[in-house]
């Protein structure tokens, strides 16, 4: 069974700045089974730092994906970065995590806090070799390289120095949280919850750092996590099958599926309720003016209306969802759907293609087309932005 690599990060800019100076970028190539993630921290904070780190991370990812040797990659980065007008140097740190065939991991580190590898709830030290690059602008350039084969359950945690230095100067931790402090925290968190997701782990680290800084970040704070786990699967059924004879087939796809099960669409829900002999109950709490209320059915993790809810879901996924949707105090059906999707690694859509029995109805002329397009849009967003594996099947 192949393990899935969940990649996620969380960040918070230095107090008063609207843009992060840190960048965490990832690229996943499912055909090659390769994942590349880069954490880069630009000199200073704010827009200028953001530009430096974005450039660095983008170049690093492109070079590594193109199999350019690290020394050359570092050189290219150094030669390309613009010079800071205040400090007259060009500088951004980076950590590159490159995961290839058979879960072989190679990590290159330049001036970021050392990454942490967590295996079976314990921290593992991986030997590192040092590569020295010709020094530039009076700065010694030392790159640490390490490699290992990841095992199911492994987590790689990378973070910027805003994490390590959080809390500096406070009574509780005059010298800051420190690498040792961060490590202890990670170990405790994972031991308490062995299946904690990459998303949550990254978020917890950043929140704790922010807490150390008394909720006013003194530097950009970023944490990224790569988690090798058994994939969590979710089935989304939407739309009635092309012919009523296939309703039974739809019902059996639903019953045998191993994972979370979601139904989007009133007609679809009615078919399943009839085929499986289960009641549907619409939940009337927290009604939203834009999104129809969700329903409950035994055996389904979520039942929603179709087009409007899916449309809103696509809109939410395309927006800024940092930290998930916990931020919304009242959750409507699309929020719930987004939450389910983001908590999954593999999403299987089954899209019914029946054309409205009464297609003379002018109010919904293109229902099928709309449904297909929205599902495609959601699938695209999940794959490109959230690095999920998505399958679409038509019935």
């Amino acid at each position, binding site marked *: 069974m192949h393990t899935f690599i969940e990649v996620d990060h969380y960040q918070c800019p230095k107090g008063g700045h609207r843009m992060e100076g840190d960048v965490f970028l990832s690229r996943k190539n499912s055909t090659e089974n390769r994942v590349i993630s880069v954490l880069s921290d630009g000199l200073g904070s704010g827009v200028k730092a953001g530009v430096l780190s974005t450039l660095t991370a983008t170049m690093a990812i492109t070079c590594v994906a193109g199999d350019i040797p690290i020394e050359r990659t570092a050189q290219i980065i150094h030669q390309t970065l613009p010079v800071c007008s205040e400090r007259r140097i060009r500088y951004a740190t980076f950590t590159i995590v490159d995961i290839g065939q058979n879960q072989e991991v190679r990590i290159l580190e330049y001036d970021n806090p050392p990454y942490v590898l967590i295996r079976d709830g314990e921290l593992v030290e991986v030997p590192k070799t040092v590569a020295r690059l010709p020094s530039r602008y009076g700065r010694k350039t030392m790159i640490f390289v390490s490699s290992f084969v990841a095992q199911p359950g492994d987590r790689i945690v990378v973070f910027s120095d805003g994490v390590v230095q959080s809390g500096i100067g406070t009574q509780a931790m005059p010298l800051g949280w420190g690498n040792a402090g961060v490590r202890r925290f990670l170990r405790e968190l994972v031991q308490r919850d062995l299946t904690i997701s990459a998303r949550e782990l990254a978020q917890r680290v950043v929140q704790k750092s922010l807490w150390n800084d008394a909720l006013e970040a003194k530097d950009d704070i970023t944490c990224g996590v790569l988690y090798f786990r058994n994939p969590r699967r979710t089935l989304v059924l939407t739309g009635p099958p092309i012919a009523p004879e296939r309703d039974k087939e739809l019902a059996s796809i639903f019953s045998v599926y191993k994972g979370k099960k979601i139904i989007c669409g*009133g*007609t679809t*829900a*009615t078919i399943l309720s009839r085929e499986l002999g289960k009641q*549907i*109950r*619409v*939940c*009337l709490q927290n*009604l*939203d*003016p834009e999104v*129809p*209320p969700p*329903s409950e059915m035994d055996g389904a993790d979520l*039942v929603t*209306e*179709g*087009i*409007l809810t899916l449309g809103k879901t696509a809109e939410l996924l395309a927006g800024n969802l940092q930290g998930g949707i916990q931020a919304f105090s009242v959750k409507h059906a699309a929020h719930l759907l987004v939450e389910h999707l983001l908590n999954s690694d593999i999403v299987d859509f089954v899209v019914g293609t029946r054309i*409205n*029995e*009464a297609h*003379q*109805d002018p*109010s*919904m002329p293109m229902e099928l087309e709309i449904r297909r397009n929205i599902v495609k849009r959601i699938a695209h967003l999940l794959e490109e932005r959230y690095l999920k594996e998505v399958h679409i099947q038509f019935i």
Partner: protein
Amino acid sequence: MKPSKDAKNIHVVICSGTTCFLMGASELFGIEKTIEGSLASRITVEGSPCMNLCKGGSYGKAPFVRVNDTLISTATLPKVIEEIRRQASL
């Protein structure tokens, strides 16, 4: 919540399917707060996925509401309240 034919209890089912919702069903869910207190205690309100009345047009136009066995099309709060009052006075 079982539909009840009991005269004391008036069962209101509001369709919250795509078409009905778009045509204003969401406002109808405020019925318990709008209707006079003496009747509010006598009604149970429930939602429903698409009741399959919106396709074809032979039942009138969305949004659809059922008050016990009476179907209301192009439902508005005043229309639904009127029907509830009618049934309550039977």
